[in-house]
């Protein structure tokens, strides 16, 4: 693919949509009926591995006397935060393991290692983003209102810094996600007032204070005179998680071929069209097993959006089936290597940092 050629949506007739939806239901059904022991064992193992990484990370940072020890500790803690946020927190909060009936591994009670309050996350992510995926104006995750990703968003000179916004958001991703429900753009336009946001701000402050206390007060203080060494290690681990998580998530919906939808298109939407929109709005990337686990299986973003409440480690086995159905209906199954997908995200951001005319010329 050369310039930014975003394919026109391949339309399906209502009949085809219905049949397509049925096929997706069938893929889902098959896995639902097979859920059991294996899935329970999987998530419990991941939780144990996470505990191992977190403990060894904190211990290494605490006792490190060389930069190597410190780096290994930060790396280990970073990995633990990634595992916890992506493969445990995100997925448990989706209710993927609620069927286990385990009060700890449950979407209603789980709280994750992130400044974003789990309740707020469930509202903005599980509900808004997953229900209105890629509907411009309704899916606030689409560009996080901090980046311009299509011409549906009017151009303004500030968008020249599109890529800089992306870098900033990546680095402070957990804070971006945490403050997402503040809806700054609506506050600015006057649609919402700060007063509406008081309950949210309270929860956000509570949660982020706890997180800051843990990483920048408690564990550093344990090290006494080496306070700053530990604080820096924890900062590095948080930054690592932020960069990683944001990259994974940007690859999920902001790639070159990811489609957007208008509100009219989705009025009184059928289940078939909902599936269709989830498919065309998402993109996968390929990689080894570790890459899938560390991305919380969001490398299978398409499957995740089609089946958000199915345990994510199952997406790998669902993927070929989804792909086959897509071929049958002539629909694009958007996938590629991680590097390639990330490249198209950058390209897209670059393209839309320019006024529409130039973008067209480029195309």
């Amino acid at each position, binding site marked *: 693919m050369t310039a930014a050629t975003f394919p026109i949506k391949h339309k399906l007739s209502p009949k085809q949509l219905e049949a397509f939806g049925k096929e997706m239901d069938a893929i889902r059904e098959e896995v639902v009926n097979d859920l059991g022991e294996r899935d*329970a064992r999987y998530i419990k193992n991941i939780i144990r591995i996470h505990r191992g990484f977190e403990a060894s990370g904190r211990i290494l940072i605490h006792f490190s006397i060389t930069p190597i020890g410190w780096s290994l500790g930060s790396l280990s803690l970073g990995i633990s935060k990634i595992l916890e946020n992506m493969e445990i927190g995100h997925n448990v909060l989706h*209710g993927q393991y609620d069927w*286990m009936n385990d009060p700890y591994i449950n979407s209603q009670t789980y709280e994750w290692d992130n400044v974003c309050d789990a309740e707020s996350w469930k*509202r903005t992510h599980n*509900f808004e983003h997953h229900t209105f995926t890629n509907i411009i104006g309704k899916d606030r995750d689409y560009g996080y209102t901090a980046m311009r990703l299509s011409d549906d968003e009017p151009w303004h000179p500030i968008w020249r810094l599109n890529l800089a916004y992306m870098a900033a958001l990546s680095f402070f991703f957990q804070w971006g996600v945490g403050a997402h429900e503040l809806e700054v753009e609506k506050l600015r336009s006057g649609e919402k007032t700060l007063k509406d946001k008081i309950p949210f701000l309270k929860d956000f402050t509570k949660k982020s204070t706890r997180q800051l206390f843990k990483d920048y007060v408690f564990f550093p203080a344990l090290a006494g005179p080496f306070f700053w060494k530990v604080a820096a290690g924890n900062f590095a681990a948080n930054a690592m998680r932020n960069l990683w998580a944001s990259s994974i998530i940007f690859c999920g919906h902001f790639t070159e071929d990811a489609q957007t939808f208008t509100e009219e298109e989705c009025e009184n939407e059928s*289940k078939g069209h909902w599936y269709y929109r989830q498919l065309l709005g998402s993109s996968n990337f390929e990689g080894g097993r570790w890459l899938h686990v560390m991305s919380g299986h969001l490398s299978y973003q398409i499957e995740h959006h089609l089946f958000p409440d199915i345990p994510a480690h199952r997406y790998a086995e669902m993927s070929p089936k989804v792909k086959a159905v897509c071929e049958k209906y002539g629909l694009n199954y958007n996938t590629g290597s991680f590097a390639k997908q990330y490249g198209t995200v950058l390209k897209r951001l670059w393209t839309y940092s320019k006024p529409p005319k130039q973008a067209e010329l480029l195309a």
Partner: protein
Amino acid sequence: MDSSNRQSGSVSKWVNSALFNTESARDYFEAFVEGIDPMWSLKHVKARIEKVQKETADTLTLTLSPTQRFQGFKAGQHLQISFDINGVTKTRTFSISSTPSELTRCNQLQVTIKAIENGDVTPWIHQHLAVGTVVKLSQAQGEFLIPEQFKHLLYIAGGSGITPIMSHLRSLINNGCPQAITVLYYAKTSSDFIFHNELSVIAKRFKNINVYFVETQGAKHRDKSNQKRLEGHINEQHLGRALETDPDHCFICGPHALKVDAEKLVTEFCKEPPRFHLEHFGLPITINESSDSHNQQAFPVVLNRSQQQMDCDQSTTLLEAAEKQGLKPNHGCRMGICYTCKCKKQSGVVRNLVTGKLSSTEAEDIQLCVSVPATAVELDL
């Protein structure tokens, strides 16, 4: 003193939630500890299944050895056992049939379990539960206890309702109780009496204990020599034959109908009605599956938190019904994907419209937006 305690409690809670994102560090480390040895736990009573022993065609007795955390029980109490069935934790309540002294002596307790047709736990126990399996236990609870003072105890049991009574009888015998005890035990046929041998031996050995086995269905080969033989559902003659003196305490455990009838009959029969002790926890609810999707029957739904009651038919989701009632339950997608609408169902059975499956009868979380009632339901809403 008290307030400073409370304060330090809430401080430690806050620190725990900051460090572990859970209310206590135990929750955080539990999975880890359990991974090392399934009998280890930082918060739960665990128990190993030591023996599985058949009693009748559809009942069996489990012998369990609980961990140190178990605080013991009194005869007649019940507890909850959580089994891991294909990755799903399923919890059910069972009466203990053994004695507290046996627990102190050899750290073992027994529950006797009847397989409930179409149930999703008891048939599994019968078919798959193996010796060596580790389960979770609650502490014992219940008020179905031997009174401190009494003259004559009357026990009326139906089917597997004999289990807590067995615990009573065994304890009473252990303690050398001299008072009169009468047991009226109802079961369908002669082969359905659990503990038949033991009860017969008890009745023979102890003059003060009389046991009547009553077959409610098909008592064909009646043993003429046995004057004590009674049959059919509970009635006045049974009481007349069994009771020489009025009991001062009457314990009833069995199906709902038996409880109602027995309480009424005993009250009428005695000059001075005894104190009644009923064991309440549930027997299975039967659901009429046959007329399924066409069934427009409405069920009463109790909303406990808002103290309201409503009717909900099977084409209206519980979310819609609650909204019609003027409530505003949390919700998002209304199509079963976001789990915003999750709510604790405290009792009853619901059908999930996405999977078409029926829920269990125990308390559990359900998605209001895709659930319709299949029986009367209680919600924490």
